[in-house]
């Protein structure tokens, strides 16, 4: 096999910060190549350079048909390079068809040809989503995060030239930057089937991911980035996951000892362990129904426990959490909150509603509805700095713009804010989305520690193994109806999946 894509000694810095320090990478035709690394290692930056969204300071890129220096995404598409970026990039006001054919609209002397556009869109979407699930005429802002992600993947496929001609694959390189971070298992499985088919058709595919299981099951080769350098690569199928993790972290991930306890929760001093009454109810839902979802949800959350909520994408988990917090109106039922220190939510949509991307890390961590009337900016920065070190957030300092952090580090900023507020009840929606293995363990450990110290946690996650490993009890949400919760000992991943899908 010939190499379809070679990156040679790519270097890139933002101001004084060197993000990539000579990265070389080679992907062959027909290969699915996994790109791994801790949050902020520079994976997305590398991919953005590949697409011409960012320009490398030094280094070269070579495609099968010659040297390649894209001036922009249009240029990249011309050469057969397309990408699904990490953050959502759809036009919320345009409908699904318009989004998918954006920039490649079929037209005759400037005039649109709607039928053709529709055909392209439905074919591209058919490749990644079940039939008819996503309405083609709906504006994408009405879609759930997961559906938007699917539209985005369909768009990349369409832009690669798949939609126009069944066998004519024009794209040569497809970059997927954490495509499954917001997908459920079935969508993810379908996506990987598709990815394999594309690879077999001769594409070179770069897959950025934090799921080591996906690497093992779906990738051929892998490369690990650490501190802007390549520090490990090989065969994805045969390499032991521990070895990959070691390459990523530069050390072992000691789950027994609890990495998180050392780095994170240990330093976390917020909880008032003293006045905790074990098992005291904090939050009770009585037949809560929202405008559309949830339709019927009841549970009691007590001090010291983690309640997991499983469910398929679109089952209404996010809506349930929003309804509890009062962000969405409820139509019937009752939410009884007895927690003295209140209730906080970790949003699944960190860029959209979770963070002020334009403001500093410290401002985001400090954002709070309560507190004294006067605020000292110096204290805000000091507080920010403290949390940056406690959660080992990779940022240049408390004053850095949050939008300039890598995706995973943004997620940590959200978590820091939640911890700082010291809520009694924490509603966490997909807390490990987009964060690396080490941080993932750290975050889940943190949740357990919090519970141990008397908090109540509601955990929503599409990672079933995460639920099973972390929760005390799990309930399943099916089309808006929440089943009674059962102790975690009665659940396995398979049982959860069956229950959610039935």
């Amino acid at each position, binding site marked *: 096999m010939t190499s379809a894509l070679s990156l040679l000694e790519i270097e890139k810095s933002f101001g004084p910060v060197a993000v990539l320090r000579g990265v070389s990478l080679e992907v062959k035709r027909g290969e699915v190549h996994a790109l791994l690394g801790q949050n902020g290692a520079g994976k997305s930056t590398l991919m953005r350079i590949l697409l011409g969204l960012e320009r490398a300071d030094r280094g070269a890129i070579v495609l099968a048909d010659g040297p390649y220096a894209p001036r922009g*995404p249009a240029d990249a598409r011309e050469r057969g390079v397309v990408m699904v970026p990490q953050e959502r990039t759809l036009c919320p006001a345009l409908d699904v068809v318009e989004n998918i054919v954006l920039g490649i609209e079929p037209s005759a002397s400037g005039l649109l040809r709607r039928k053709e556009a529709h055909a392209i869109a439905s074919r591209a979407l058919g490749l990644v989503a079940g039939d008819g699930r996503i309405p083609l005429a709906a504006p994408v802002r009405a879609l759930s995060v997961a559906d938007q992600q699917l539209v985005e993947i369909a768009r990349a496929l369409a*832009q690669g030239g798949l939609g126009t001609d069944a066998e004519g694959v024009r794209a040569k390189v497809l970059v997927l930057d954490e495509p499954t971070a917001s997908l459920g298992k079935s969508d993810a499985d379908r996506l990987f089937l598709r990815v394999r088919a594309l690879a077999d058709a001769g594409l070179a595919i770069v897959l950025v991911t934090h799921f080591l299981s996906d690497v093992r099951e779906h990738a051929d080769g892998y490369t690990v980035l650490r501190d802007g350098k390549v520090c490990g690569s090989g065969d994805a199928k045969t390499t032991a996951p521990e070895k990959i993790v070691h390459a990523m972290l530069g050390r072992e991930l000691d789950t027994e000892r609890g990495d998180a306890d050392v780095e994170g929760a240990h330093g976390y001093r917020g909880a008032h362990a003293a006045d905790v009454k074990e098992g005291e109810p904090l939050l009770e839902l009585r037949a809560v129904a929202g405008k559309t979802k949830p339709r019927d949800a009841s549970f009691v959350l007590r001090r010291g426990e983690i309640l997991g909520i499983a469910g398929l994408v679109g089952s209404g988990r996010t809506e349930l959490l929003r309804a509890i917090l009062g*962000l969405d109106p409820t139509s019937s039922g009752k939410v009884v909150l007895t927690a003295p220190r209140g209730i906080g939510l970790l949003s699944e949509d960190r860029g959209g509603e979770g963070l002020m991307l334009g403001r500093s890390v410290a401002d985001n961590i400090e954002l709070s509805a309560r507190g004294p009337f006067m605020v000292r900016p110096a204290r805000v920065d000091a507080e920010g700095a403290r949390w940056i070190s406690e959660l080992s957030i990779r940022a240049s300092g408390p004053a850095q713009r949050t939008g300039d952090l890598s995706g995973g580090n943004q997620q940590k900023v959200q978590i820091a804010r939640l911890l700082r507020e010291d809520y009694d009840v924490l509603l966490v929606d997909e807390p490990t989305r987009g964060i690396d293995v080490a941080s993932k363990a750290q975050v889940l450990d943190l949740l357990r520690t919090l519970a141990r110290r008397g908090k109540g946690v509601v955990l929503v996650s599409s990672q079933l193994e995460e639920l099973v490993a972390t929760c005390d009890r799990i309930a399943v949400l099916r089309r808006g109806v929440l089943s009674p919760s059962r102790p975690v000992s009665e659940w396995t991943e398979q049982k959860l999946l069956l229950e959610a899908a039935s």
Partner: protein
Amino acid sequence: MSGITSALDALRSMRRPAWLGPLVALLVVYAVFAIITPEHSFLRAQNLPMMGRQTVVVAICALGMTLVIVTGGIDLSTGSLVALTTVIIAKLLKSGSSPVFAILCGVAVAALVGALIGFFVGRLRMMPFVVTLGAMTALRGAAKGLASEQKIDCEPHGLDRLLDASLASPGIWIALALALATAALLDYTRFGRHVLAVGSNEAAAKLCGINAARVKILVYALSSMLAGIAGLMEFSTLTVGDPTDSFGLELEVIAAVVIGGAPLSGGEGSIVGSVLGALLMTVIRTGAVHMGMPSWVQEIVTGGIIFVAVAIDRARRPSARPS
């Protein structure tokens, strides 16, 4: 079963045309005035072509403003540009140029100014509000300077007949043709899709290989060219070049566009809606005169109606998921 639900879903997800709200508002306000004006003077035959004629300038400006607002921008220089165009045309006519040459020059200068504004907004990524605020002041000054701070009298050479008393006056038909062309541009061409995409999510548009800067330059050039044509119509009405003309016109134009259903956040907009919005404002103004309302009552009513029209329109639309 699933066939029915999916059909229902399709129906629900169908977008209600943005111009429905302003159309209803227009009809209601028209009917109210027709009923309550003394002796129903509002229904007199001359009234319709007159209102059409009075709307032409605002409507033509609103076409371009819609495009600008759809890209998420705004253009405060419209009024000054209209005044500048009347001055250029008058000055050229006075110095003996042919009317065609005068028109071409006026419109070309406007388009050039627009391209420059577009360059600053699109290429240099400056805020449209600031760029056009600066342009508003500077162009007004340029118009005054060019006209030596007075109105320029000139023989109109037939240009005054562009907008005359009858329904057949060419100005109204030109405006209509321009509206259709702009609507087609926005809804049926690739360029139109790109305009919408840039306004909806510029980063996404760029990712799909759309040259956002070029789109903006074209949009501002087009919008200013339309303002130039509106300036021609204004000249046809005034028959003089007036550098102080159309002060504050841009706010009326923006109001028309917003009433027409385009949010200032961009990504959406309807040419038909904007034209209806412009008509609505004329109907209110004319109706108030027919009612013999004092000016101040008229201003309160206008303010109230802008407000109510938009409020009702927004209330009816399904609220988007917060994102």
